[in-house]
């Protein structure tokens, strides 16, 4: 069997900023309370135009599970690692909590979890993937902004979406090779 490479494709045009993904993630992954504690988020982009001609978009995001993750390069104890499927994880037993990875990540994907005492981040709900389920944020989304799947499978939904649509990634200039794809 071919190796898997997980990715999430986002169609932000569908996003209504209901923040179901954020709460679902917090519950699923025992993310502590606190408005700066989250593995994923939806930000309101600035209002466009002037009253009464207005427009606004919403930007859901999370860890990009980069192919070339800066957080992985900077971790002094190799607590950060890339597991099967390309998911970037933190091994809580090795993390010293120096927070260097939080600074290295250009996507604000990492936070310090004071309950576990180590850095925490999105793992595409690796515990759910392990049993054939999809990440909580993907599953719970009312308007199905996110699509999750294996990019190494040319027939997967994510592969088809990327084949048929134009898309962008965040901060491509940094060379991180993100695996969150935003449809244009």
């Amino acid at each position: 069997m071919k190796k898997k490479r997980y990715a999430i494709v986002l169609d932000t045009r569908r996003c209504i900023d209901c923040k179901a993904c954020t709460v679902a993630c917090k519950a699923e992954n025992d993310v502590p309370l606190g408005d700066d504690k989250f593995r994923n988020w939806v930000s309101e982009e600035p209002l466009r135009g002037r009253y009464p001609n207005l427009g606004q978009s919403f930007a859901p995001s999370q860890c990009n599970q980069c192919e070339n993750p800066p957080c992985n390069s900077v971790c002094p104890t190799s607590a950060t690692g890339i597991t099967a499927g390309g998911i970037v994880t933190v091994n809580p037993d090795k993390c010293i909590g120096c927070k260097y990875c939080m600074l290295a990540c250009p996507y604000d994907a990492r936070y310090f979890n004071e309950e576990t005492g180590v850095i925490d981040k999105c793992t595409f709900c690796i515990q759910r993937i392990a049993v054939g389920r999809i990440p909580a944020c993907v599953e719970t989304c009312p308007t199905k902004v996110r699509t999750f799947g294996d990019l190494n499978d040319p027939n997967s939904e994510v592969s088809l979406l990327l084949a048929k649509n134009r898309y962008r990634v965040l901060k491509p200039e940094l060379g991180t090779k993100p695996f969150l794809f935003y449809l244009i």
Partner: protein
Amino acid sequence: MSRLIDKKLSRRRFLGTSTCALATATVGSQARVLKALAESGEVTTSKVAGSKDVFTACGMCVNKCGVIARVRDGRIHKLDPNPDYIKSRGMLCARGNAGVKVVYDPDRLKYPLIRAGKRGEGKWRRASWDEALDLVAKKMNAIAEKYTRAGVMFASTEGTFQEHFFLQMAECFGSPNTVRHPTLCLSSNIQGFSATYGTFPTPDVLNSDYIIMAGANRSEALITPDSIDQLKGDGGRRKLVYIDPRFTKTAAKADEWLPIKPGTDMAFVLAMIHVIVAEGLYAKDFVETLTVGFDKLVPHIKPYTPEWAEKECEIPARDIRRIAREFAKAAPKAVFYPGRRSSFADDDVQLRRAMAILNAVIGNWDTEGGLVPNSKIKLQKHDYLAPWYDDVPERIDKGSAVFLSEKDGSWTAMRDRILAGKPYPVKGMMIYKQNVVMSVPNRAKTLKMMDQMDFICTIDITMSDTAWYSDVVLPEATYLERQDPLESLSGILPVVAFRQPCIEAMFESKPNLWIMQNLAKRLGSEIAETFDFTMDDLIHHQVSKNPKILKDLKSNGVHYMKVLPTYGLTRGKRLRTKTGKIEIYSANYAKKGLDPLPVYTKHAEVPAGKFRLLVGRNAYFTHWTTANNAYLHELMPENTLWLNTTSAKKLGLIDGQKVKVKSPVGEGTLKLEVTDKIRPDCVYMAHGFGVLSKGQSLIYGVGACDAALIEEKLEPISGNVAMHQTFVEVSPA
């Protein structure tokens, strides 16, 4: 003074004898997850024992979405959407996900409480259920004895699936004075559409090509499946025209946003009808065969030109014309969305009539992408025969509205009459989870009404403002801890939902059925006997004609009959109107002295220096119930007053400063949010803050309460309250 015991009784058991225990239906087990995790070595897990997945239904708002509760070690870890639950399209919103924090809320009511200090002082003593229920029964009987049984009013929430027992208690106790939320919400809407179609239909959002939403903020006021379906067509096929004085998240998703002047929606709708009729764009065959009164509509609509409407509603005439033409062109797969909350202005029923007529003339009735009558899956009803009491007067609010619901009443009309003590005194309040202090406009008046009560008992899961002002507070088990009866949810694709306990009820909280049964025992055997059944009995009775329902619920968490809509079932059949047709002209209204066709009336303009206060929803909160939820509180820790950028500049106010908002009936202080997202003549604040109860620890002392500011105005046809007719002053705090 009525006598207590003079009743004609004829009871009958509503149930057979079948009592087979309802084993909790679960989906697979978490064991597989944990095993896989352990093998992957990624996550260390030791907790395998006691894990189960339980099908249930969400209880965070009115939608009752399908939920799979993941229980680990006797603790609800995560609520996942039930993918089979077609009504919610297999999703769960932020509130649904935050349900775990309802159960594990430190602010939860844990034990029965009896007031120890003055009302509203917040001094309580813990009581046993026996003591508390004895006291409630004693007080209820005392009031019934001193006044009449109508002297105890019953205010109930909806959607817990257990409110039926509360209403049964009201009926069996013998009080006609039950009151529920519709007159604070959608009763105008139901009245206006029902007067036209004989029923309140559902828009087929999924298949509609052209949707006009007026004040129905579907991206924030989530309604399943509409909120989900409105986005399905995104990407070209679907056109969404959104009309709202605020630029909401629905506006952000709409193709067009028209910031209409509040209270003038009818001008827009009438002008659309005008264009469609005048230009002959209406569905001629349809109008001819399926409606009555079109001939009367034609002259009636003549003066309502787009040019006239432009002056009223401030939407350019050319836009109205264009939208009317586009709408008619897309017909019948076009719909003017009926919305839900209809508490806008005091002629709201006629606005809804106009909306219904607009839909009728393009012929979208009972077609794909149009207005579709609901179907419903039949469950057997719980029949009981309520004791009969003599000398119990009629509803206190009788006659306060032309079409008053016997069960739901009219909240503000009722309050006024209670305060006046006319025609008779109401001195006791039994409240089931309705937060009347925060929900009914003009909070000061509600508190005054409560002040004159001899006794107030509130059943709730948390210390609401209403509970805070009560004499006895009874803790109910939350929706994740209860076995609820099955509930049939109507819609284009109807479903049956149910709730099963995911964990045992915590502390001393009890399901409402238990509370009612034990209260009934204390109120006398006649009442008690109507409650002489178990939840198992009831559920088996509900499905006695179709046991497959329960089987489906156990195996999939939901029962449904079809996954594809069926249209046109009403074709060739009489509608439930007087004429059996769609009544563009309502002879019934004419008979009652009402306008048989909607006539536009001007409302009061915003006085100089003041702003119109708007109410509206956001996707994180269900009314007052969730602002104190730990997860949701993070998403919106306080409410702000929206004020247009130019208006703020005129007042010299800046973003983020504290401002005082003052209306004729109250005031509040909150942070100002200067934004282009609202009309310059309006202000808006989210509901749920400015609480009085210190039992809402996360939000006590934060923000302002809109209910304290809003002047209640009554819609005389439906008894609905009009909430957008309050003008406020804004000044620096």
